[in-house]
């Protein structure tokens, strides 16, 4: 088969109009681009990974395609040994995020990444990051489990600062009864911590992250202060509807976690009203940001 290059299928204005008309994609009753444009969007869970080639400019280019106005980013150190994400590595990662915020003013919402294993350094880093313009903590990873007492000072600091806390939901595993990473926080960890700190704003990271989303939604049902973000590469039909059924629209926050197209599509595909889509795409997160005055007018 002949191959083509990227340039050869760039939109061409030189094609004869008749030929172009004959080759148009089929007309459809559902206008995808209009649906994408219809909603303001803030992505509560995304990343830059300079060590893996995911740059701020790539993230902005992808966000622009999907008309996502603001993107909350972190650069977590995705190691699992408790001591592995050192304070210096966390500071370096947060420095990259702060730089991205400067390079793309108004587009990125900074998330401070820390490892609760290092209490003193983490608390200092949170102060530094929030004072520098970050709006929340995220995506705290699998070094320490959310129910571990080493996490408590971090949560208490978030309450003091009125800063939301996004935590990696570690329910992706080969067997739901056997956590892959001992330091990973599963849905069962979020409920007790919500009971201990009902005033904290804690977000379960990516119900579509490969975990059993039915299990996650059912486990979080009776923890009303816990929010869940909709990101992840899983695009199962019915996932968002089930999350709404268990958690209610108010507790769901739009996110992509680098799965941009499907991140937007799964909200469009859900059986929601237009007002409910506005809530998930934008309003719910904006209300959370309002607590510290970081909301969008």
């Amino acid at each position, binding site marked *: 088969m002949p191959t083509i290059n990227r340039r050869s299928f760039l939109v061409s204005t030189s094609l004869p109009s008749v030929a172009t008309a004959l080759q148009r994609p089929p007309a459809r009753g559902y206008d995808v681009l209009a649906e994408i444009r219809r909603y303001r969007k803030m992505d509560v869970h995304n990343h830059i990974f300079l060590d893996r080639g*995911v740059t701020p400019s790539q993230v902005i280019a992808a966000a622009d395609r999907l008309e996502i106005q603001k993107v909350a980013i972190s650069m977590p150190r995705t190691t699992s040994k408790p001591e592995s994400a050192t304070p210096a590595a966390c500071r370096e990662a947060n420095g990259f995020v702060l730089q991205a915020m400067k390079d793309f003013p108004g587009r990125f919402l900074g998330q401070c990444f820390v490892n609760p294993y290092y209490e003193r350094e983490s608390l200092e880093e949170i102060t530094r990051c929030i004072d520098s313009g970050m709006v929340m903590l995220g995506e705290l990873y699998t070094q320490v489990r959310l129910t571990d007492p080493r996490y408590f000072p971090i949560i208490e600091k978030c309450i003091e600062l009125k800063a939301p806390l996004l935590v990696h939901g570690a329910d992706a595993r080969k067997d739901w009864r056997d956590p892959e990473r001992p330091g990973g926080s599963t849905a069962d960890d979020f409920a007790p911590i919500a009971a201990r700190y009902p005033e904290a704003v804690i977000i379960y990271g990516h119900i579509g992250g490969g975990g059993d989303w039915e299990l996650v939604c059912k486990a979080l049902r009776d923890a009303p202060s816990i929010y869940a973000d909709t990101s992840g590469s899983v695009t199962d039909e019915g996932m968002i509807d089930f999350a709404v059924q268990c958690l209610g629209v108010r507790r769901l926050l739009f996110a992509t976690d680098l799965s941009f197209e*499907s991140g937007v599509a*799964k909200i469009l*595909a859900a059986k929601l009203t237009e007002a409910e889509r506005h809530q998930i795409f934008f309003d719910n997160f904006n209300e959370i940001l309002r607590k510290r005055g970081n909301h969008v007018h």
Partner: protein
Amino acid sequence: MSIDCHTYIGHWPFRQLRGNTPRGLVNYMERFGIDRSMVANINGVFYKNTQPANEELAAAIKPFSGKFIPFAVINPSYPGWQHDLEVCHEQFGMKGVRVYPQYHDYKLTDPRFEKLLDAANTRNMPVAFSRWLEDSRQHSWMDIGGELSLDDVVPVMAHNPGTFLLLNAYLYPMKDEHLRVFREARIYFDTVNATITIKAWSGYDILGLMQALGSERFLFGSGYPFRDPVSALVRLDIAKELDQRTKAAIWNDNARRLLRI
């Protein structure tokens, strides 16, 4: 005309599916402007003898003339599949074959599978694989939890270059050695699990793959009702790099060429 190359009817034992009937599929197709769907019966994944699933499919889609392009689920490790294939092709008008070696417990190097490829090729029926039906990270304790990797599929293509293959939900992870084989094979891909934005963990960069293999290898596919019906639509519609002619081919012409219809 628009064709979805990747849909199902039938029951999935581990999670409730919606829209998994011919009527449900037609509702999806009408809502999103799809004219025809290539469809197979999930029940054939679980029946040891898959032929009743094919019979169920043939009967179920009968009232929806012209809407569906049925694919037979064939298990080459079970006796009598040759007769089943003949019935599916000649009596039921099925246009392709879907195989589930993970569930039917045979290797792609099994000589019986090579015989199926030969038989399908003789009948001009493409053979479709699925990387998975359920993301293995969230599988039920009763499900097998495995996935068919491209490393499994590549030797099949190397040994059977004449067979038309359709890989469903397969654009990840793609290696250079895969591409070398794909260039010489009659292989097609659907658009499930692809990405056109950032190549991180959500799939292979579909534009890069088109550049490497040619856009004529790609068919629109949704994976419905397992996957949400809008992701595949978004993927194509925001791809500003693809001209109208290329998009039209992905929607229709490439599928027609694969099926020789």
